[in-house]
């Protein structure tokens, strides 16, 4: 197969796995690989995270070596260098430990909700920016501010290059960063504004304001994007039509889920169904206590990543949804080649066919998360096994 044919083939097996109308030619394999890609390609973390060319190179090298059907991280997950000229405090790279730290920070205080709700652009400018970029209000020059835009350009170009080279040189469809995606208001507050502790506290102490902020973000961003979904056509290089995130559910009780999460999340799921699209939900942690909400989703639209839950149980409880995952980081990192391949075979024998995409449970980040030889063996096996 040439790369064009390979791209079409991969798109088809992913489509078949999610649509669940016919058995895909073989089980598709998604890469849940993050900073590990950099380490495996021989760069230090800081080298690649601060040099777009090296970052691009590490991603392409990775895909040429292993040959996945889709890279969830197909671009630049952590573009910390973009805002560095105006100061950033949430990221830290440690080359000796081969670790990138992200701190759980809140970029606003509970008192700032009033401005958030009254004048959102002003809130971003006066509250979020100075909190996020710690040099924003001090001795900042116009040149430094301009440099942020230069770097943003570099970032956009890097993402574009990666996606296009994955398509043309590796016959690989688009992943998370280059697929249409919208983040509900709750997830935004959780991930970008208030952090985990702030979110937990606001839901209890000032639930009305918190909910109003979720709703405002949904009105401004989520609902218009869902409107667009109705008429949008699939991109030529797509793996799926739409990607959703499920991260902030990890702390929610059922009551909170029903108050803050489910209404807009359901609207998103309904829009996907109404537009007859396919959607991959990148979900972290355990989703089990919410499975009953997904039971009635029509078959053939959704693929959920399974991190902490038992993937066999997921398939049993939600036969209407495609499961993504199954391969444990602990096995890839600590097992033998034979054990890894035999477990991959077991997963495919039990779950393969419609409704299953093989992937790694965790976001693979650290060197010991995977032994490269194990990964190579699993990837080769999955491509051949029918």
């Amino acid at each position, binding site marked *: 197969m040439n790369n064009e044919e390979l791209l079409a083939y991969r798109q088809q097996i992913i489509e078949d796995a999610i649509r669940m109308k016919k058995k895909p030619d073989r089980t598709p394999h998604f890469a849940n690989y993050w900073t590990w890609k950099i380490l495996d390609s021989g760069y230090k973390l800081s080298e690649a995270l601060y040099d777009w060319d090296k970052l691009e190179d590490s991603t392409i090298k990775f895909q040429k070596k292993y040959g996945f059907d889709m890279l969830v991280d197909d671009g630049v997950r952590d573009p910390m260098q973009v805002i560095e000229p105006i100061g950033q405090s949430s990221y830290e790279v*440690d080359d000796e*430990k081969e*670790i990138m*730290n*992200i*701190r*759980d920070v809140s970029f606003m205080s509970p008192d700032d909700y009033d401005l958030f709700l009254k004048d959102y652009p002003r809130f971003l400018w006066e509250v979020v920016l100075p909190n996020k970029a710690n040099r924003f209000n001090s001795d900042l020059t116009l040149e430094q501010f301009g440099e942020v835009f230069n770097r943003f350009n570099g970032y956009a170009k890097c993402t574009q290059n990666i996606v296009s080279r994955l398509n043309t040189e590796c016959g690989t469809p688009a992943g998370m960063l280059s697929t249409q995606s919208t983040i509900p208001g709750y997830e935004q507050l959780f991930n970008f504004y208030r952090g*985990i*502790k702030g*979110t*937990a*506290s606001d*839901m*209890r*102490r000032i639930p009305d304001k918190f909910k109003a902020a979720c709703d405002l973000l949904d009105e401004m961003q989520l609902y218009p994007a869902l409107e667009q979904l109705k008429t949008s056509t699939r991109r030529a290089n797509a793996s799926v039509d739409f990607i959703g995130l499920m991260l902030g559910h*990890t*702390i*929610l*009780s*059922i*009551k*909170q889920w029903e108050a803050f999460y489910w209404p807009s999340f359901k609207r998103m799921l309904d829009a996907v169904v109404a537009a007859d699209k396919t959607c991959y939900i990148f979900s972290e942690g355990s989703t089990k*206590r919410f499975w009953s909400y997904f039971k009635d989703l029509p078959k053939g639209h959704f693929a959920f990543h399974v991190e*902490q839950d038992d993937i066999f149980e997921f398939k049993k409880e939600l036969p209407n949804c495609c499961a993504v995952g199954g391969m444990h*980081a*602990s096995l890839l*990192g600590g097992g033998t080649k034979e054990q890894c391949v035999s477990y991959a075979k077991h997963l495919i024998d039990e779950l393969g066919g419609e409704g299953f995409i093989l992937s790694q449970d*965790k976001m693979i*980040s*650290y060197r*010991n*998360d995977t032994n490269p030889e194990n990964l190579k063996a699993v990837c080769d096996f999955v491509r051949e096994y029918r």
Partner: protein
Amino acid sequence: MIEKVTDQLIRALGELDETQVIICVKTLLENGVDRFCIQSLLNEGMKRVGALYETGEYFIADLIVSGMIYKNVLELPRMRYVPKLGERVAGRVLVGTAEGDVHDIGKDLLKSVLSANGFDVYDLGTDVPPKTFVSESTRLQPDIIAISGVMTVAVSAMARTIQALSDANLRDRVKVIVGGMCMSEELSREIGADAYSPDPLEGVAVCKNFLLKTS
């Protein structure tokens, strides 16, 4: 009257009603109720929170808030209590998240449950290198070290920490309990920890047991 307020306090903490909790505590203090008595009432309230967590009514966000309320009460002027070095409370515990890992939600939950049970808790924060565990153990002489971690890298960091404690000849003076979602019973044994628990409440029971055995 006092009895009514004590009931109210327990109920308010169980319901995570922070304003009410603070009002009750202030009233009790004004009426001469001592800080230890108030703390034991708080602990009753925390037990209710734990029970509601177990039934699924509460989840992590609620536990985080219960920890915040608890901490805020203990920081009220007349509630504050700093044990002197060398002074024994239920026992002294050093807690920290393993090197390389900055996740602290689980660690903080553990910390509030330990404090609620009368332990004298020292928090070393997150991303704590083995050498810090060693130097702080030498300085503070804890009975127990509790290490938390959620990321795969935390496993080897915990192993290195336990090794470093042995190298510094501290291992037989201190018990090590590990937890967090990177851990399992089996792994904890492999790395030479004294105990593992997936649950802070159970973890505290284990810590109490350690002390019973050593005393």
